[in-house]
């Protein structure tokens, strides 16, 4: 294996780069104007890195079939983007406007952006991308969009079938493909306007990409990136052998020491929490025959008491070995998260008082009872997930202190599907799209697919979330999402309706070569690995 060069980049170079970036971004398309800028950039010190992040996209690199929804689409650029604080910023767009009825979104496209093949990127490519994605029958769900239409080269108009503030997430996540170069082979030889050009992909082995000099956001510092696709064990071994510069590892392996590399633990909303059935058991079943309701978790006092009694810091230390943070909502740290949902947990005394007040009296066996119902229920977790198993056992231990018995039960996803309307389930979520919060808590979605399996319903919350979806400005939507969590009176938080008891947010762990600066990473969504590439253009050798 050839050794990579790792020259030190003097501080002055950063300034040169910045100047260059500005020069390049204002330049025309490749082939039409390759003046002084590219000549100068040839002298820039460049080098390459090898990374193992797992998660090879087997279907290729076509955004229309779902590529790039986590992290950076790498080869393509998107209309909007999130910065490291997860604020929405322009990428290809220079701005967007939503009509008062929320049905028409007008996006203006910046001028002078080119695809890697030198062709200019226009509004026609944008409209083509969205319309093709809508028809593709893939993971890209554009159900709310009626059509996308380019008015001129720089303006595209999206027509929605109903107001949908979360449509902005599609503008953030869908990479724009070139109309002139899109076809069946596109996924295996992608052309876009993103920070990196496609060089080669050996499926099952590696992906090689090179920085795109004319990238409108400023050419990336790292000249060449190789993504190798290896399992967790092989990744760790390769890191040890000195073959990797960035290696994604599970938290269970993160406490190892690898010479020449440092551990970077990135905060995430990759959360784990307990879902409670909120209906009483009245013998109802779903159309599949799954029983609905649980007489214990139906009582909001039980749900609140568990939320109070759980010591989340102890879970982070004991189960995650410190690689995580306490979770109080499905969206901790995201722009639509409400900071008021955080409370003092691990308070067994308060939890006991709450249960006493609600009429759950302690019986001989130490398990509370109310009206002949014993405070016992099953806590189901996917049996193949070690972290969730440990969490289930630890939480069950903690709530036994307040006289509630949760019995951890390992099950397959098939069994969980049948049990989730009548037993508590340890789920994991976490997305950069507030739609997730809507789907988990909206009364109209109760029992539909995996959404809102606890049949939680609160008309006030439903109204907030409906208004949030219908909002025509991002600010208004964020405010309404926050209100749904806690509006001062009610909410989905652990001290209010408590349909969930959120436990922890996992840290995503990476070993990073000494001297490689991967910047201040943003709070990551559920997927481990690729999301770290979201700001790959800022990575550089120190």
């Amino acid at each position, binding site marked *: 294996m*050839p050794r990579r060069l790792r020259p030190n980049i003097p501080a002055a170079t950063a300034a040169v780069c910045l100047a260059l970036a500005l020069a390049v971004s204002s330049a025309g398309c490749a082939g039409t104007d390759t003046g002084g800028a590219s000549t100068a950039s040839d002298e820039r010190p460049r080098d390459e890195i090898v990374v193992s992040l797992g998660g090879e996209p087997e279907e*290729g690199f076509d955004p229309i079939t779902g590529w790039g*929804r986590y992290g950076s689409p790498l080869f393509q650029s998107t209309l909007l983007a999130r910065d490291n604080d997860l604020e929405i910023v322009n990428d290809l767009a220079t701005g967007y406007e939503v009509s008062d009825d929320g049905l028409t979104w007008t996006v203006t496209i910046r001028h002078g952006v080119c695809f890697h093949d030198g062709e200019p990127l226009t509004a026609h490519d944008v409209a083509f991308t969205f319309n093709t994605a809508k028809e593709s*029958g893939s*993971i890209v769900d554009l159900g709310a969009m009626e059509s996308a239409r380019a008015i001129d080269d720089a303006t595209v108009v999206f027509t929605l079938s109903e107001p949908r503030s979360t449509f902005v997430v599609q503008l953030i996540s869908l990479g724009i493909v070139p109309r002139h170069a899109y076809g069946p082979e596109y996924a295996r030889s992608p052309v876009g306007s993103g920070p990196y050009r496609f060089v080669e992909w050996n499926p*099952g082995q590696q992906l090689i990409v090179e920085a795109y000099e004319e990238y409108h956001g400023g050419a990336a510092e790292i000249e060449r990136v190789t993504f190798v696709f*290896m399992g967790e064990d092989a990744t760790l071994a390769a890191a040890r052998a000195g073959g990797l510069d960035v290696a994604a590892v599970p938290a269970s392996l993160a406490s190892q020491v690898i010479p020449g590399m440092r551990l970077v633990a990135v905060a995430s909303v990759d959360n784990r929490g307990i879902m409670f059935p909120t209906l009483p058991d009245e013998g109802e079943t779903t159309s599949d025959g799954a029983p609905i309701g649980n007489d214990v978790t139906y009582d909001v006092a039980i749900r609140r008491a568990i939320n109070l009694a759980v010591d989340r810091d102890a879970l982070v230390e004991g189960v995650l070995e410190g690689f995580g943070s306490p979770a109080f909502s499905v969206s901790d740290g995201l722009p639509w998260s409400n900071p008021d949902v955080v409370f003092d947990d691990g308070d067994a005394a308060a939890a006991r008082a709450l249960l006493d007040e609600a009429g759950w009296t302690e019986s001989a066996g130490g398990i509370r009872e109310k009206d002949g119902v014993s405070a016992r229920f099953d806590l189901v977790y996917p049996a193949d997930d070690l972290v969730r198993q440990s969490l289930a056992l630890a939480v069950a231990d903690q709530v036994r202190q307040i006289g509630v018995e949760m019995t951890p039960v390992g099950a397959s*996803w098939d069994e969980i599907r049948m049990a989730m309307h009548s037993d508590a389930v340890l789920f994991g979520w976490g997305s950069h799209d507030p739609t997730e919060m809507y*789907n988990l808590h909206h009364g109209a979605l109760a029992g539909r697919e995996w959404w809102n399996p606890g049949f939680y319903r609160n008309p006030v919350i439903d109204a907030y979330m409906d208004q949030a979806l219908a909002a025509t400005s991002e600010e208004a939507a964020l405010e309404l999402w926050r209100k749904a969590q806690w509006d001062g009176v009610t909410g989905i938080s652990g001290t209010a309706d408590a349909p969930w008891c959120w436990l922890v947010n996992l840290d995503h762990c990476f070993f990073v070569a000494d001297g490689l600066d991967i910047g201040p990473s943003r709070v990551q969504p559920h997927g481990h690995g690729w999301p770290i590439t979201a700001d790959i253009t800022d990575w550089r050798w120190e």
Partner: protein
Amino acid sequence: MTAVLTYLAGKAFRLATLLAAVCALSFWLMHISPIDPVQAYVGAEMMLVSPEQRAEIAERWGLDEPPIERFALWAASLAQGDLGTSLIYRQPVSTVIAERFAASLVLMGTAWTLSGVFGFALGVIAARYRGTLTDRAIRWYCLTLASTPAFWLGLLLLMVFAVWLGLLPMGLASPAGVRSDDVTWLDRLRHLVLPALTLSVIGVANIALHTRQKLIDVLASDYAVFARARGESETGIIIRHGMRNVALPALTVQFASFSELFGGAVLAEQVFSYPGLGQATVQAGLQGDVPLLLGAVIFSTLFVFAGNLIADVLYRAVDPRTRAEAPA
């Protein structure tokens, strides 16, 4: 001439029924497995993909038809030589298999040759010096290998040669970051060593022990005793009287090992991140990619069947007795 034709027709009939049975069984197993391909594809996005969109994905993949019809459709297009399109790779199954098998073939071929040559040689040496320390050492070595899981041995080799000694690469089929046009044969060879060595281990013990036993029998036979009485050297006896007799069991074991080779390749490719057909088959199974899995099943069936067929044919070439009896 007729005998040969009848023989071939019989084999073809067996192959056809075997393929039909294996495909139907695999399809049925995939059907009753709890893996929902749409769910496997949607994965972590499951909170964001609406039921309507799921239905659209299922429709695009043809999963909305009843299973019997799906199988019939698949079989009909197979009859026209179309293996269908892989769900996870979004490419024709034949392309995926061709691409992946090219890598696997080099790996399996090397391992197979190594285990055959090495195993046969060890067996002959052990029999020649039976009862001595050499024999005991070889037998000990074979039994240890036979009871070693291949993936574990792979990890061990990886730790020693790639991590501690740093002599050989950490897996993959070519160096990271080098375009395939720029990869040299030496590079490929270096990347092949560990997986091929791991895979070859599966066959070595088997062949060595079979060969040893047969050769000991031969050396105790009347004609070997007679040859010895005539003053022929032990080595001469082995070359002139032993080899042909011993070749039979060795050939059987060697060609029958095609199935183990295929199974072992799946493990070795996982351990060494080697991009072969085994790796693709595992992905297909885990993500409910029925067309690709069935394609791989057909392919591996053909592969194993071919192995047995070659053994049959070689028998006739090596041993005149089978030729004389030869009923179809």
